[in-house]
């Protein structure tokens, strides 16, 4: 049943069915599109969605358990933030998320996530591509490969990241061995002009009237060339791709122009970098883009090795309002039910304080990476709302109750999108590859 494409087999792409033409999911699906709000750098679970009062008892003292992470950590470090029960469901959420907390009844919080290595690079690869190091396609590439995209005038997999590239750069949204059409399109949302957002999307030379005339001439010349070559659909495909590009210029221009939104919507998101980028994300989803990944920023902003209180408050403050606005907006538009929202980082942080050490940490009062346990949440798209699933140990160090590996998360998300993660494969280099490699189990309890 998998969507096989024989390595080396001719990949004919007729004009009608380009590589991104929409395809139905092989199985019944609850979610049609995905937005991954990526807190790159790794938010601390004990400061966000996993309250651990027991840490207070050990404040400044060694914990009974100690796990080895990238850098040396010391005594227990209780969260400087208060948690309160939110919504009908009473999920406890840190005070740094006042607006997201209002959506507690929509959230499906997983507190027992774990991954494999407490370093950014492999964990980013695991979260985005289901592998620690090797070259594998990104989640978004798999999805656009499997489902195509609804709007042929826009890329199917869009990556919003303000200020430049995150760690590992484009490897996070690579199509790898899948055709290049499934690669994520990175957009630096620090810019506001559309031609800086998408490469070559606007002509510096010609108005669209002039371009129309150029295309008419081009079509005329191409028709002459096609005579006697009618058996080559790829000639017509290229003709059509110019027409598509011509329309895409206008579509792209309009989708990134948030001034087209009513004032109250723009106010809800806020006129900040994160507000604007989240609003663009919603506009993309609404226009039929299959997979949107929204990064917090270039580098690894959530990597608070020092001053967790100051840094985590600031970071959450930047995106709390926009994320809440997105959830409200999706709901009001009736899109939340079939849009799968994923929030989280590539791993979590230690409940212990990181020690200052030249070369590894130049500051104080921070936390190290933690691959043993962390939290994510999902919303919409067929996940069970108002749920808290799994648990870490008493101190938030390691996933203990119902642990969920990143592969399990991927398997579950694929399930929601209408794929059996074991059968959704691509033949490459003699093997049928899967997003989940040879791992992963659908976590049924997370499904609505």
């Amino acid at each position, binding site marked *: 049943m998998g969507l096989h494409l*024989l*390595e*080396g*087999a*001719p990949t004919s*792409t007729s004009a009608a069915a*380009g590589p991104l033409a929409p395809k139905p999911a092989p199985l019944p699906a609850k979610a049609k599109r995905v937005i991954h709000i990526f807190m790159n750098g790794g938010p601390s679970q004990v400061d966000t969605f996993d309250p651990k009062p027991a840490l207070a008892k050990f404040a400044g003292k060694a914990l009974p358990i100690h796990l080895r992470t990238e*850098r040396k950590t010391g005594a227990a470090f209780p969260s400087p933030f208060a948690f309160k029960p939110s919504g009908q469901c009473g999920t406890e959420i840190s005070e740094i998320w006042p607006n997201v907390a209002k959506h507690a009844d929509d959230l499906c919080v997983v507190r027992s996530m774990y991954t494999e*290595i407490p370093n950014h690079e*492999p964990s980013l690869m695991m979260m985005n591509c289901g592998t620690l*190091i*090797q*070259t594998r396609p990104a989640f978004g590439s798999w999805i656009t490969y499997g489902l195509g995209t609804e709007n042929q*005038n826009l*890329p199917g997999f869009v990556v919003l990241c303000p200020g430049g*590239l995150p760690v590992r750069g484009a*490897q996070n949204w*690579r199509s*790898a061995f899948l055709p*290049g*059409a499934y690669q994520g*399109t990175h957009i630096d949302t620090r810019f506001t002009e559309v031609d800086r957002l998408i*490469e*070559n*999307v606007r002509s510096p*030379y*010609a108005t669209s009237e*002039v*371009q129309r*005339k*150029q295309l008419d*001439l081009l079509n*005329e*010349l*191409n028709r*002459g*060339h096609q005579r006697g070559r*009618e058996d*080559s659909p790829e*000639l017509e*495909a*290229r003709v059509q*791709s*110019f027409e*598509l*590009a*011509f329309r*895409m*210029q206008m579509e792209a221009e309009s989708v990134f122009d948030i001034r087209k939104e009513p004032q109250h919507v723009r106010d809800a998101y806020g006129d900040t970098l994160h507000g604007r980028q989240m609003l663009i994300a919603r506009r993309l989803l609404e226009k039929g883009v299959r997979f949107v990944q929204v990064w917090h920023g270039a580098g690894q902003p959530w990597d608070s090795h020092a001053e967790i209180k100051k840094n985590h408050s600031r970071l959450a403050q930047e995106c709390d309002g926009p994320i809440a606005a997105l959830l409200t907006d999706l709901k009001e538009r009736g899109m939340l039910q079939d849009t799968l929202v994923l929030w989280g980082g590539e791993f979590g942080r230690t409940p212990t304080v990181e020690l200052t*050490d*030249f*070369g590894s*940490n*130049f500051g104080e009062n921070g936390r190290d990476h933690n691959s043993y346990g962390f939290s994510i949440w999902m919303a919409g798209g067929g996940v069970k709302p108002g749920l808290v699933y799994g648990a870490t140990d008493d101190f938030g160090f*390691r996933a203990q*109750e119902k*642990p969920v*590996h990143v592969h399990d998360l991927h398997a579950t998300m694929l399930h929601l999108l209408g794929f059996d993660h074991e059968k959704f494969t691509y033949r490459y*280099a003699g093997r049928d590859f899967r997003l989940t490699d040879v791992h992963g*189990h659908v976590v049924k309890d997370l499904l609505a």
Partner: protein
Amino acid sequence: MFLSGVLSALLLPSVFAQAPGSESLAFFESKVRPVLAEHCYSCHSAKAKTPFAGLNVDSRGGLLRGGDRGPAVVPGKPDDSLLIQALRHRVVQMPPGRKLDEAQVAALEAWVRMGAPWPEEKAMEAGPVKADPVAGARHWAWQPLRVATGRSIDAFVAEGLARQGLKASPEADKRTLLRRLSYDLTGMPPTYEEIEAFVADKDPQAWEKAVDRLLASPHFGERWARYWLDLARYSDAGFNNVRFPYAFAYRDWLIAAFNQDMPYNLFVERQLAADHRKETEHLAALGLLSLGQNPPRATLIPDKVDDRIDVVSRTFLGLTVACARCHDHKYDPIPTRDYYSLYGVFVNSQEPELPAVVDSSATPLDGFYLPRLEQRMAAIRAYKQRRTEEIRAELRQPEMLKKYLRATFDTRTFTAPQADSLAKERTLNTYVLKRWRAFLVTEDGRQFVAEATRDLDAALEAWAQRAPKEPTEIPYEDFGMVLTEGDGNTVNNLRWAWDRIYADYAFRTGAKRAMAVTDAPQLEQAHVFVRGNMNDVGDPVPRRFVSLLSKAGGEFRQGSGRLELAQAIVDKSNPMTARVWANRVWQHLFGEGLVRTPSDFGIRGEAPSHPELLDELAQSLLADGWSTKKLVRRIVLSKTYRQTSGEQPAARLQDPENRLLWRMNRRRLDFDAVRDTLLAASGQLKREVGGPSFSLNAVPAEPRRTLYAYAERERAQMLLKSFDYADPEQHTPQRHLTTVPQQALFFLNSAFLGEQARHLSRRADLRGGRYDEAGIGRLYRYVLGRVPTAREVEVGLAFLKDRDANSAPPEGEAQRAAWYYGYGTLDADAGKVTRFVPFRFFNDDRWQAASLLPDREAGSASLTAGGGTPGDDSKRAVIRRWLAPLAGKVEVKGKLSQGFGPYEQRFHLSNGIRGWVVSSRQGVLGKWVIDPITKTEKFTPNETATVETNLEIEVQAGEFLDFVVDSRDDYESDEFNWAPQISLNGQAWDARKDFAGPRQRPLTPWQEYAQVLLLTNEAVFVD
């Protein structure tokens, strides 16, 4: 079959009366098997040489049968199961020395309670499908080559066609043929003149002459090297975007190898083992191995080696050996042991600290770079030395001594992997503990164990006082084994800083060194990693070739064994190498190989369309002394190659994919050929062969051939991606061309197309400024190599006429820009800027002298909106120039600043900078110096040194103010900020806000028309 299945189900114990549900099996696979595999298999599995206590826990049978103490599991009864008791440390203590997590034990307990469900054994052992040994042995690809017959290519093809009642197509016209041949052999179109000359040549040998001319072209090597670069996952930069300083030397070597028609067997051997042969001039060939994945962590070495195994086995052998990393290959007869045999070869092949010298002649830049590099390298060594000593001292602290002595005692009966796990558990260093365990076998060690067995605490006290020196005397070379995270980061950062300077040196002085590899000084024995897990070490395996293709024995004995590997690959008894290469050559000439899975000739690959022909080609390759050019020549001289790509409706119905070759395939140019074609049409293409890479992103475009474009793994360019360019991360046997609108956007809107349209329109100059048939004719000849038809002229003229009538008059020359960006010389004594060279390229929001930094002459000199980087010395200072448009009083405000990070501060990476404001009329108006901030404390945040650069002066119209920054003769870490604001007579200029790249002006109608021709299908498809 059915009956035996029923019977075995009946004979199973009661809990298995029903097959275990998928839920419980899922639980087993996720929660139970991984725990057993990780913590128990190394001693208690069929893979362990002799299972400890006779117990195997890698099968249900093994657990039920149990070991010396009886059954380990009683299904449904955890309290009666020895396994659970042992994990709870009740009866025996397992795993030795430590306890599993409560959650893990609970999971195993729950599993036993469920009845210990286990998936059917057979399916388990080898994965879902077991390679079928019979079918495997018979597979076509590993049969010996058929005996050469001397039959022609056309005879084989005709035979295949005749069987289906089909016929080949007639020979294509000469125009089409030469265009096809030029692209296939050189990746570039023929010129109009070349086509005309060929058409006019009535010599019956005309085709041979054209073939030989193009085979002899230096551009043949460029085109075919590019194909090879796809296979070799070529990248100019590796981890963290740090450049491989001499990657381009590998590319140059490939070009030369193809141009010289290096025999393919030597071509293979040199890429694997030029160092073994001590062939200095061929060391760059080893780039195939050295330019791969290079993650800087010891735990990722298996992935790095995997990358080598994958590239080598698929490129040369068409075998997907990497599939056998975790289990035997599921389809092909490649056991996991073969994978680890090759692992042994590549894990023992390392990149030396410095690239190998190929050409030791001096360059003018040696005096500038070499002492600096030496000094930096000395600082890295000194840091490692000092830290090694500190770590030794830490290990001599009595508390540390006691910890390691205790661990030494506790692990006295352990295997090495067990000792490693205990070390990890106690956060001790596994390597240091290994050194300590060597103490056990000494006289003193035995004494210590004896004492410790009597009274552990007393023995620890006593031996901490007289501990042996040896375990803690960490040799300097083993610093990597004991460093802390901070040390690792520090060394990596210093090394990367060094690499950046070194790459600058390499890019400015050419291919004087090679990214070679050498054998490890001490060879490491490779073991199978059970299920690919490096912590689960299985049997040792010798270094040798894949068993499928090798004779018995055949262990490699010379160092890493790379030379022997190469020899085995090109050994004539191995049919794969010649077949795979012959097929690739065919693929590049026809668009598809005879085998359409060019890097997978295994059972899951596609069978050849013409097996006899493939063997005949492979035989001719061997008979011609592995000459690639002769093989190419043989193929392009065939009638099969010279057919038209025209339609035969009946044939298409029968063989829609043209597997039988009833015509030539119509092909679309790949990105390299497209871009080179556009440059050739516009007359801009530079034809020099070889050299360091340029950047595709710069404006204006550097008109070098596309294969020289800089490629890096971590910044895949969307442009290249959208054109299905080879991914520099992985072996790419074939580019699968898709058609997406992003490609059309590039043709319509990119700066590159605009530039080429302008150049082309200028080249086909409109004499007298009137659109006419002659002008259109010139454009057609440049772009399409032919004259236009009457109809084409007609529609062209109509377009031009319409556009001319409706286009706005060309925009008047805008107000002369106030800012200029360049570098040059400040003569401080004379108070003058004596040389100003404008920057030519704009790339990534930066003005610079080359499309890709460094420039040979100007080095890293460059300017951004808010600042810049100076070049080497005062002759290469960066200059932001402001032109006063009128006379008056000028007020200049600004801040010159430089940031210093912790490494800059602690390791004195920068010596600071100097800034001046110099007037063309009045000389030096101001001078400022920024001295470096240096600190050595542990806790060193980023710091910035800033000076104010405010001035008030009178200027005259046309006077320049130059904002000059120089590096004080050491440009490292000299990125600065300086964005002055200027006011004059109520007008204001702001360096940051006014900063812009080259302006793109609208095209004229004539240029619009030229662009359309560049966009036509005819220009990018080949019949």
